[in-house]
């Protein structure tokens, strides 16, 4: 078999696997969300016997979905911005300064990710209670989310800070630029893709986070994942869960596509300034 043939075969296989991986769960979620309560979708039928938007309308009107959407979509961007601000100084130090143990420090920053989320959530909430932050639940969740996803933010921004070229900083300085002008002309263009990536990743992680939102937030604050949990875990209404899953996942898919576009626009030739 020629190399080109093997190559195209492999591409077809990868596309097929990806389609199955994505298309089947999505199709199932869409179909389940359309199941009409008048007639259940039993295992002997390929498609739901009656399809309608009843579940969508019902969830919208009779559950805390509206409230969950508002809290999820206000928690996530706030946590993303706070996470970005908290990660900046550490990433700057890790990306711009040479010091003994720098690589170890980078590794240590990633370490919290290996702890299972529920364990972190339980201990983190205990910490928040001790700090007295539990009284303002929204703030507590924002704080917890931004801290929890800090490893991602620090890692991404460290790489961005490493990409800032020293000669651009020096050139700006040589031409009389103030620290702020230096940041705008030398740092910001190199940091932009990293900043967008950090914001999006923390946003997506925060939207999907369940453990902390559940432990700290309930019963006052309902987010989409906690609502999803009650639909699936407590009541086990699969069509309702399907509606919530789609609401949760569709915006994330679009955000990931935007992220991909942003990453691609970070053209390395553009940042090098050399032809």
């Amino acid at each position, binding site marked *: 078999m020629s190399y080109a043939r093997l190559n195209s075969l492999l591409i077809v296989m990868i596309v097929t696997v990806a389609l199955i991986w994505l298309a089947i769960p999505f199709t199932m979620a869409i179909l389940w969300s359309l199941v009409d309560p008048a007639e259940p979708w039993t295992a002997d039928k390929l498609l739901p016997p009656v399809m309608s938007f009843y579940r969508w309308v019902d969830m919208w009107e009779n559950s805390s979905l509206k409230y969950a959407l508002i809290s999820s979509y206000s928690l996530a961007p706030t946590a993303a911005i706070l996470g970005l601000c908290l990660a900046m100084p550490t990433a700057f130090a890790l990306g711009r300064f040479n010091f003994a143990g720098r690589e170890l420090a980078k590794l240590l920053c990633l370490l919290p990710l290996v702890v299972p989320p529920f364990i972190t959530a339980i201990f983190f909430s205990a910490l928040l209670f001790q700090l007295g932050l539990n009284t303002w639940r929204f703030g507590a969740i924002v704080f917890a989310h931004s801290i929890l996803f800090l490893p991602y933010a620090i890692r991404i921004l460290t790489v961005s800070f490493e990409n800032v*070229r020293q*000669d*651009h900083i*020096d*050139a*700006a*300085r*040589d*031409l*009389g*630029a*103030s620290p702020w*002008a230096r940041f705008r*002309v*030398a740092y910001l*263009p190199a940091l932009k893709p990293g900043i967008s990536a950090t914001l999006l990743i923390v946003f997506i992680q925060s939207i999907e986070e369940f453990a902390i939102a559940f432990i700290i937030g309930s019963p006052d604050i309902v987010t989409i994942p906690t609502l999803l949990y009650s639909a699936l875990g407590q009541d086990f209404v699969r069509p309702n869960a399907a509606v919530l899953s789609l609401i949760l996942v569709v915006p994330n898919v679009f955000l990931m596509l935007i992220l991909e576009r942003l990453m691609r626009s970070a*053209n390395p*030739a*553009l*940042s*090098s*300034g*050399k*032809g």
Partner: protein
Amino acid sequence: MAAIGIRNLSKSFDGFQALSKFSLDVQQGEFLTLLGPSGCGKTTLLKIISGFLEPSTGSISIGGEDITRVPPENRDTALCFQSYALFPHLNVLQNLEFGLKQKRVSRDQRDARVSEVAAKLGLETQLSKLPNQLSGGQQQRVSLGRALVMRPSVILFDEPLSNLDAKLRDQVRVEIRRIQQDYSLTAIYVTHDQSEALAMSDRIVVLNDGKIVQVDTPEQLYAQPKTRFVADFIGGANLITGRVCSQTKENLTSVETLMGQIQTSHRINKSSENVELCWRPERAQIGKGPYCGTIVHRAFQGQFTDLILEENDMIFRIQTNNDRFRVGEVITFSILPDDVVVLEADG
């Protein structure tokens, strides 16, 4: 008053002495080149002059004013970077204007200066392009233009031509020199390329191990290298040691070497001393003469032919316009006493 005065400048990094007790005056409008191998301290010196490094000891003044502790953004110097360091997201015009905006130069002044420099450098048609749409030579010109619009007292060049190909390098070399003369700029130019240094400079400072080895005009430096290091670093040189044997009345000294007796018209301090001599390959006169050698290698270089000769286990190099000579031939040659330079001991 000298445009730049450097006094007893030293710089060390974690025990490594990059510069030691360096003193130098640069005159107004002078094109001075710092030449030396990698690690000789030339870039360190440039960074100290531009303000990016602080010296361990010593002082620097520009126009009589001490600027040793003045940060780079407040110095009246402009640096042309080896990598050009153009801001990739700004177009040529914005790159050129950047420094003037930082210094809050009025819009009219800014436009006038930018258009003047753009015209001088042939950049008028490139103003709306981004740096990555330009060739290496054009980027170099933008980098030079960005420094020129600032009208600095001193312009500093950090190996600006090292990223260009050979032909373009020759062209930009001429341009830099022309612009420096047109604006009567005081320029300090760092390079490790001796031909660049010889072609562009009013004076060359040869550096080695953080110290000045020789400061001279290009012509003097080439014709009268002081040490073995300078002779070897600038141009091709045949170096030979010998013992001084006699001094004749016409101020000629004879030195006994493995090649035979070599006469030099250059002054030797003490008699009966071992000395090191240097003569340039193109100074040998082929034909009659006291010296001979067998050609072991021949390299045709276009305008001249390089011949490597061997005699008494010694290798030396001769350059001639005559391309008839072939490997294996024995040739005789002479060297004029004026062309034989007596070197001082290194260090």
